[in-house]
């Protein structure tokens, strides 16, 4: 009874609560998008409506190869990061004593509180021919020549994986901690060994954690400009670099807008594919 009275007399309130966030999003997110969309249909010099920007992307190999490079890079980074992060998250959740866990996590996150730009640059130095990685590899006798790591796609992948291993560890860890121990007990009671329990119970139940982390990895990697720019040596340009080139060097905003919208379309497809795991549900 109370509830119905309540909602009928405060109709303004909920809208007033939600309005600021909605307005902000509409004004500073949706509107720019519409502006970009409109701009992408105009030519760089002159006026009128044209599809030339989009046509350029689909017909010029150095442009659509940037998209292919982006997708390849992102796929590699996502897969490697998940493979490296899962065992780490598992170790932190299962092997580390409970009261040390938060500290262990904190330690894992700590290095990311240096500046992102400087961190990428440090990787460039660490991976260079005289850098400490090559020093270590040659010192240990594993290699006789220095490896060509810096200024390659490998360096870019390492730079990304470095960050996303941490991110995925966090999401998978959170998921693992949430699992009720009763699932495991039930499976054990039914006679399953630890390996089976992992494959058939734990892994599927941690899929949401993996998918959320993987999706974030995908979005953040494909849109990132700094890591490829600093570590990639301008070899195998990716979409973000291509877009920045149009903005920075040419001031060709129409083309940049078109490229940005194409990138968005790709990300949207990925989002739809992962949508099941990405719903924001209340506890």
């Amino acid at each position, binding site marked *: 009874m109370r509830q119905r009275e309540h909602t009928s007399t405060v109709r303004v309130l909920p809208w007033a609560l939600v309005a600021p966030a909605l307005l902000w999003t509409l004004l500073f997110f949706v509107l720019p998008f519409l502006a970009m969309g409109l701009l992408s249909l105009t030519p760089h010099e002159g006026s009128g409506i044209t599809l030339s920007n989009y046509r350029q992307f689909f017909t010029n190999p150095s442009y659509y190869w940037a998209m292919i490079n982006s997708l390849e890079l992102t796929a590699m980074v996502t897969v490697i990061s998940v493979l490296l992060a899962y065992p780490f998250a598992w170790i932190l959740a299962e092997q580390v004593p409970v009261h040390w866990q938060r500290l262990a996590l904190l330690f*894992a996150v700590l290095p990311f*509180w240096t500046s992102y730009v400087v961190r990428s640059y440090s990787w460039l130095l660490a991976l260079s021919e005289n850098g400490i990685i090559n020093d270590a590899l040659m010192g240990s006798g594993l290699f006789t020549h220095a490896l060509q790591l810096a200024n390659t796609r490998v360096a870019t992948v390492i730079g990304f994986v470095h960050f996303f291993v941490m991110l995925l560890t966090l999401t998978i860890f959170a998921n693992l901690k949430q699992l009720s121990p009763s699932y495991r007990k039930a499976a054990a009671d039914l006679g399953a060994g630890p390996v089976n329990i992992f494959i058939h119970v734990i892994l599927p139940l941690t899929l949401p954690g993996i998918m959320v982390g993987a999706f974030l990895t995908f979005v953040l990697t494909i849109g990132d400009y700094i890591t490829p720019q600093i570590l990639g040596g301008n070899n195998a340009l990716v979409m973000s670099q291509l877009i920045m080139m149009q903005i920075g060097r040419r001031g060709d905003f129409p083309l940049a807008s078109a490229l940005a919208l194409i990138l968005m379309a790709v990300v949207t497809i990925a989002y739809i594919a992962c949508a099941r795991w990405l719903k924001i549900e209340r506890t």
Partner: protein
Amino acid sequence: MRAPVKFLSVGYAAAIYTFIFLPVIVLVVFSLQSTAFPIPPFTGPSLRWYAAVLNDTRLTSALINSLIVASISSAIAVALGFLSAWGLARFVLVGSAAMRSLITLPLTVSYLIIGMGLVILFNMAGLPKSLLTAGIGHVVMNLPLCFAIIYSQMGDHQINIERAARDLGAKEWQVLLMVTMPVMWPAIFASLFLSMTFSWDEFVISFLLTRFDTTLPVEIWNLLRSGLNPKTNAVGSLVFVVSVTFAIILELILLRRRPS
């Protein structure tokens, strides 16, 4: 079965921790370089680059700018996120699902595109670039995150507490301020913390949307454009030390506040 698993675990964890700390170690070690190149060989510890950083007014003012932009934009993002999350969680509104999707939509868009869109918009509107425009971009970036975190924590169990408060005669804003906010404080804190972290270190949006007064990541980028310089290492290390100190203080506060 246990022992080898333990052994492998320790080994694997150690390897991952080494990997994670590698660039930071390189960073800090070469910030103490006494010659002008932050590359091997290491030429003895020297604090000259830290002195250079503290004397560089562009860097120090960029650092302050970063703090200002991060705190104000995060505060706004958390406020907007909290209010809209509460509104959508507690009340039944038409098009609720659509509104939730709209507010969280920017999460799927890369910062480069958010920044670009705002550059185009502000250009058309004749608004000059500044820390304000960068701050606006940061709110766009962080609002969905704050909303998502807070909304996901607004469980039904809190409704009862709020209802009880209303029954006892509390007005709506009192419920919000004195019941909901304290109960939601972990989520509010988490979103504030995350927003500040993202904003503090954010490059692309700040790069596109500032002119002279700029944030630390952009200033570091400018510094990098002028060539090899251990000053960048020194700045990175300083940021690191400040962040770690901040985290330690936070830990101590949290430990003290935690109910037994």
